[in-house]
């Protein structure tokens, strides 16, 4: 596999950032994920993951607007970089390949 290794949670966060395109900041990511994923989301974990993604160069960040709700503080908006996109595509390809090769007998519910 070329490119950087992507952890499971990192992949989820990265996807959500792409999903939320141009509106992706820690709180939004957190809420989106908590809607979809069963386990509870903690701001700290999300934040750390975003930091790690930025360090790996898979996202870039910029300062966005400030709102009163945030007490006048600006939010940090993240967007997926080309490298991030490549990593996601790669991960998807691997999964698809594996999914595609699963024999019908393996899963009771069949392979969709």
């Amino acid at each position, binding site marked *: 596999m070329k490119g950087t290794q992507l952890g499971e949670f990192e992949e989820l966060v990265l996807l959500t950032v792409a999903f939320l395109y141009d509106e992706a900041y820690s709180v939004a990511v957190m809420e989106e994920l908590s809607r979809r994923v069963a386990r509870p989301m903690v701001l*700290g974990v999300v934040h750390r993951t975003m930091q790690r993604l930025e360090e790996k160069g898979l996202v870039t960040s910029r300062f966005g607007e400030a709102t009163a709700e945030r007490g006048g503080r*600006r939010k940090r908006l993240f967007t997926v970089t080309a490298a991030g996109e490549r990593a996601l595509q790669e991960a998807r390809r691997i999964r698809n390949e594996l999914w595609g090769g699963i024999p019908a007998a393996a899963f009771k519910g069949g392979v969709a």
Partner: protein
Amino acid sequence: MTPGATPPRPPRWAKGLLERITAPHLLEELEGDLEELFHRRVREYSPRKACLLYLLDLLLLLHPRLWRRKPTAHPPTPLFRMTLLRNYLTVALRTLARHKLYSAIKIGGFAAGIAACLLIALYIRQELGYDQHYAQGDRVYRLLRRSALRGEAGVGVHFPAPLAGTLRAEYPALEKVGHYNAAFETKDIQIRRSDRPESLHEEGFVHVNQEWVDILELPFVAGNPREALTQPRTLVITQRKAEKYFPGEDPIGKVFIFNDDPQRQYRVTGVIRDFPATSHVQYDFLMSLAGKEFWPGEQTNWRTSNYISYIRVRRGTDIAQLERQLLAIVKKHFLPYVVKNGANAEEIGWLESFRFELQPVKEIYLNRAEVRDDLPHGDLRYIWLFGSVAVFILVIASINFINLSTARSANRAKEVGIRKVIGSRRGSLVRQFLTESLLYSFFSFAVGLLLAILLLPLFNGLVGKSLTFPWRTWWLLPVLVAGAGGVGLLAGLYPAFYLSAFQPIRVLKGHLGRGSKAATTRSVLVVFQFSVSIVLMLGTLVIGRQMHYILNKKVGFDKEQVLLLEGTHTLNEKIVAFRQQMLGLPQVRHVSLSDFLPLAGRKRNNGPMWTQGMADAEKISSQHWNVDHDYLKTMGLKLVQGRDFSAQMPTDSGAVIINQSLAEALQLKTPVGERIFNWRGAWTVIGVVEDFHFESMKEKIQPMGLFLGRSPNTLLLKVQATDMTATLAAVTGVWKQFSPHQPIRYAFLDQQYAAMYADVARTGRIFSSFALLAIVIACLGLFALSAFMVEQRGKEISIRKVLGASPGHLVGLLTLNFVRLVLIAFTLAIPLAWYLMRAWLEDFAYRIPLQWELFALAGLSAVAVALLTIGYQSLKAALANPVDHLKSE
């Protein structure tokens, strides 16, 4: 956290905590995120739950990533950034150059203080470093005994001849036992090489045994160290004497003849290096004790004590226990001998009171001279004294520095204000001013070092030592640099913090009045400076007065124009003819032959005197001097009762002339005609002489008796000459006739007398030097301060003048404050000075009283000096044209 009029806020303390922990580049987004979540949760749940969740989130945020700082684009200012440092130095140098006077005073005062400190440090270093050079020094001790006689405790260093041998034989704990004898046959010696006829007078003779040489590890440059003094009549000399008598030759085996007597010969068997300046003993001729007996039976006599003993103990010996064990010697040897030879109860009691003490060799020099060992001693008190003086002078100089820096702060205030506006933090400013003071400090240290090197010869003369800078030691330069740095930092701390505390807005608006608090500190410092100076001045005055008193007090004899001829015993029988010739000279009035002289360190003879029926305990300890018929006339002693010795009275061979102290002590109401006794027999008192000082004035006049006897080493000539040179020439001429191979040795009684107090004179000189230095530095500071103050009050003075104030009034105004400070300093100085001077004067049995006029004199001088210093500035200000200051309004 309650809903209501105010919208719910996140807990403030938690926010504060977050702010403090989080890295700066993350703070904004995190705070915002948390707050956003908080508000949403308030809407969804309740404020209470929102708070709890806020705290929970905060807790879960704790992770090193939270506080890891982003590697910054510009690193924080390191301690010594080159360009900033260069700027500081430039500014410092410019300030220095612009105010040359103040800078000169700051640096000059500092340098003077540092020079004084360096010189004193050298002195203290040598004083504390005596006898450190023995490899086995921590096992070497000198033997002391403490005893009590008639209730008086005494310490002695002298022991009988057989003690050394006995100690070695009976105490295995002692590795080596050595002793020396400096009492017999060590004075008035003229030596010559066996192959040359001229004799030269020499000093520094001592009789030693081989083990003493081993114990003190004397370094030999020629001869066998182990065997040099094992044979009788052998001699070890120092290198400088070897150079003097045998330049370029090998001294070993050569023979010296003593006092021109072929029976007294010594063969050179070794040459040692000169004793170092830091050795407590200084000798040049070590004569062997092997086979030597000073008088028959002397070597086995346990009653006479003339040997100073040194021991080297084995490793691990318990000293206290050894001291106790040594007591056995008293019972085993001292007492039996004494009893066998007819002792009295008093002597036995004295012996039984013996306690031995082992004195480590390193402590011999500094031990106060309660031990009369005829060796020079340092005084620990003087070390403390000079050390304190040095510290004080340095403190005074530092005070100048601090005062001047803070006083001229108005000039730097604008600079500080602008720097702060541009963005300097307080820390940088402090660093700047510390850099400045370090610069001054290093400058001053360099100048001070130079001064110290230049003044070293003068200082050596002042303290009577030969000190040198230890350039070879590795630690000298680092210590100096560290010292400069330390002093610079300490002195610079207060000004640095003071100057950097200016608030830019107040400075740039023009309110500079941060005067009051600093002014008090300055005043306190000035008071301190002057107190120290006044104490030193008083010290000088008192010492000077005491010296004057000593030198001019009536001593009871006439010391003017008395010539002492030394070494006359070598004339032997020719002395009679020599005397006649001397009397024949027109300028010579009286001639007397005796070497008992009223000078410290001369021949003395002590023993008990008593009248009929006196118990042993009552016998008076007194001096017994052997003089001739003309002694009283030659010395100008006054008889208060009775008559002088007379050649016409043959019975005078059993006569004695006593002094008033002895008459009092023996309780003789009519002394003349009474019979008194000493160990030699019975004597008739024929006269009483007025008490005269024959020791230094530190001692009370002892009882004494003058007997007719032969003591021919010194001839006293009372002359009455207007032309002393011609008289000396005549005397020398006669001497040459009688003793062609011996150069004449003479001295003047009054000069010798003054030399007795050389150490007092020296202390006085030292005090006056330091007092002068302290006053000069304090006045420099005062000068600068007053100049500054006049500058400050320039406008005020001009306005007062315009309104009609007289110059006198103005001068008074300006000087009053300072004069008040000096008076306060004076009041503080008095008790301290009084206490110190009284302690010093107690050393003297005859001393001046501490009169109030001395104190008044010191106080007035201080005020006068202060006035002079300030006066110039004040006068100039008072007489100036007011227009000059008010022009630029």
